[in-house]
């Protein structure tokens, strides 16, 4: 390698590292910015020029968030739907997948045809709405849980995962006289933790972030989700010449904007805490998904 080549190499290294560093900052800074704003006095934030740390530190925004009935309620609804929706969705999908993972299952071709067809064709939003309405799910908490019980994408992934579990494991349990549900619960689930962690992450994040179902199918203020409330506030302040509404301050320098910023941090925080630890699982998951499609 001659000197010229070495120099070129260094130029390239610098270019690559600097570019990636800028990309990384552009991804990270928006999150950091709302984090410091959430700890800054609301009325002070409106003056601008807060870039690196809170200028006027306060916990009032979070205190107000918890005191505000509407925000707090939305937070509880979101936690409830995330926990219930994730547990029931993962269990239901796995149970169906366990049945389908038996290659000698009668009618399994028919079952698969029904599932694959449903993956490619849908009736669209309006007929779906009519169905939800007629089975009484509109405007109820159940609309967050029941329609997302089965995830066809993860169903296919789970089937191929269960098929790779050594047959002897299941056989030995059967010989001991265990019933299918026991085999599923005692043997299949415990050896499928990587799969379950991946599913739980995606289903859980989907539930936590969801606002469309709240917008489409729910009118009751009691059932609004955190993401929906944020959408409402953003939509309101997105409209032109609405700065005054933002500046309409309440006690302790908290503004509707600083309240919204605190809500954003609260909705981001659990995701930031969880996803780095599940990294290796979901990378496996996306690879599996892309190969088996």
């Amino acid at each position, binding site marked *: 390698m001659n000197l010229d080549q070495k120099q070129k190499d260094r130029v*390239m*290294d610098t270019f*690559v590292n600097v*570019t*990636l*560093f800028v*990309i*990384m900052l*552009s*991804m*990270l800074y*928006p*999150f950091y*910015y709302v984090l410091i704003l959430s700890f800054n006095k609301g009325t002070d934030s409106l003056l*601008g*020029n807060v870039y690196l740390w809170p200028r006027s530190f306060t916990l009032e925004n979070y205190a107000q968030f918890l005191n505000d009935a509407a925000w707090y309620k939305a937070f509880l609804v979101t936690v409830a739907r995330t926990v219930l929706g994730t547990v029931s969705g993962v269990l239901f999908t796995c*149970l*169906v997948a*366990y049945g*389908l993972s*038996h290659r000698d299952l*009668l*009618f399994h071709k028919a*079952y698969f045809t*029904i*599932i694959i067809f*449903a993956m490619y064709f*849908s*009736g*669209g*939003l*309006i*007929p779906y*709405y*009519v*169905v939800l309405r*007629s089975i009484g799910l509109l405007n109820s908490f159940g609309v967050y849980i029941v329609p997302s*019980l*089965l995830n*066809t994408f993860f169903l296919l992934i789970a089937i191929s995962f269960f098929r790779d579990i050594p047959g002897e494991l299941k056989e030995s349990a059967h010989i001991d006289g265990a*019933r299918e*549900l026991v085999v599923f619960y005692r043997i299949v689930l415990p050896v499928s933790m990587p799969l379950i962690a991946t599913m739980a992450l995606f289903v859980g994040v989907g539930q936590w*972030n*969801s606002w469309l179902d709240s917008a489409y199918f729910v009118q009751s203020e009691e059932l609004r989700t955190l*993401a929906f409330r*944020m959408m409402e506030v*953003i*939509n309101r302040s*997105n409209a*032109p010449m609405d700065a005054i509404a933002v500046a309409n301050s309440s006690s302790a320098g908290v503004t509707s904007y600083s309240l919204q910023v605190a809500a*954003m941090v609260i909705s981001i925080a659990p*995701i*930031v805490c969880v*996803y780095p630890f599940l*990294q290796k699982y979901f*990378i496996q998951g*996306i*690879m599996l998904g*892309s190969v088996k*499609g």
Partner: protein
Amino acid sequence: MNLNTQATGSGVAEKSGSRLWKRFKKQATLHVFVGMGIAFLLVFAYTPMFGILMAFKDYSISDGIRGIFTSEWVGFRHFDEFFRDYQFGMIVRNTIALSLLKVLFTFPAPILLAVLLNEVKNNGFKRVVQTISYLPHFISWVVVVGLAFSLLSTDIGMVNKLLLGLGVIDRPLDILTNPNSFWGLAVGSAVWKEVGWWTIIFLAAIAGINPSLYEAAQIDGAGRLARIRHITLPGMKGTIVVVLILTIGSILGGGMVGSNFEQAFLFGNSINNPTSEIVQTYAFKVGLKDGRFSYAAAIDLIQSVISVILIFSSNYIAKRSSGSSLF
């Protein structure tokens, strides 16, 4: 067993029937598990498919599910009405432009990022950049729009305040409320949100390239750019084709990054409406907000039919030309 079948004749059907029944009874629990899933799909996937009929009828929501079948046929009247709508041209133009622009930029971006990451020699730095790059994928569009608002709005946006303070601009930039900037905003935020996520797949493709190819090229005197061009990029070809099929099939929803509806709905406002109104947001407004169910179902159906055609034809073309396909 074979002999037995030939010999008895009429007893066969009965016998194999009872054998089938025995097998079914043995598997009964499994069929209950699967049956729950099938029942779920019948209710939440197949019943709405029959609901498509309402696009050709005068359906009223007060008639419930039965109304789908009992209401009066009107043929293509709702479709005709949409084609004559004064906003029709604008809505179709926005849908197509937004979809094409998003694919054009969100498709190559993760490929470039993967190539860049592959050139990093420090593994720690590489891992940190990658981990941070897919954080936005897990954040909801609502929060992303909220972040954009905090940074870009004319009154409290950090970027506007900073640029005004530095004297770079003398009027705040109205990126969020300007019809001319909506497409750029949608494309930019989509790249920002999803580039890291799709990089995972392309990095895995790079990891599958035989390292001896790089060594051989180096001995032959190929520089790093030459190695990227002749080894890294060709090594990703299979993955690129598969992702391209996915992208083209889902182009009307925004390609592989999706979320055309969410972006148009959340970034859209009365001022940028001329460029932000798309088929899906329009169908939502006339359907669930104005209660014109048949009309909205017809609009939805047009988009679904085009999407299905795109999925199958892109898959067919890919199968023909390269041997890679999804199904």
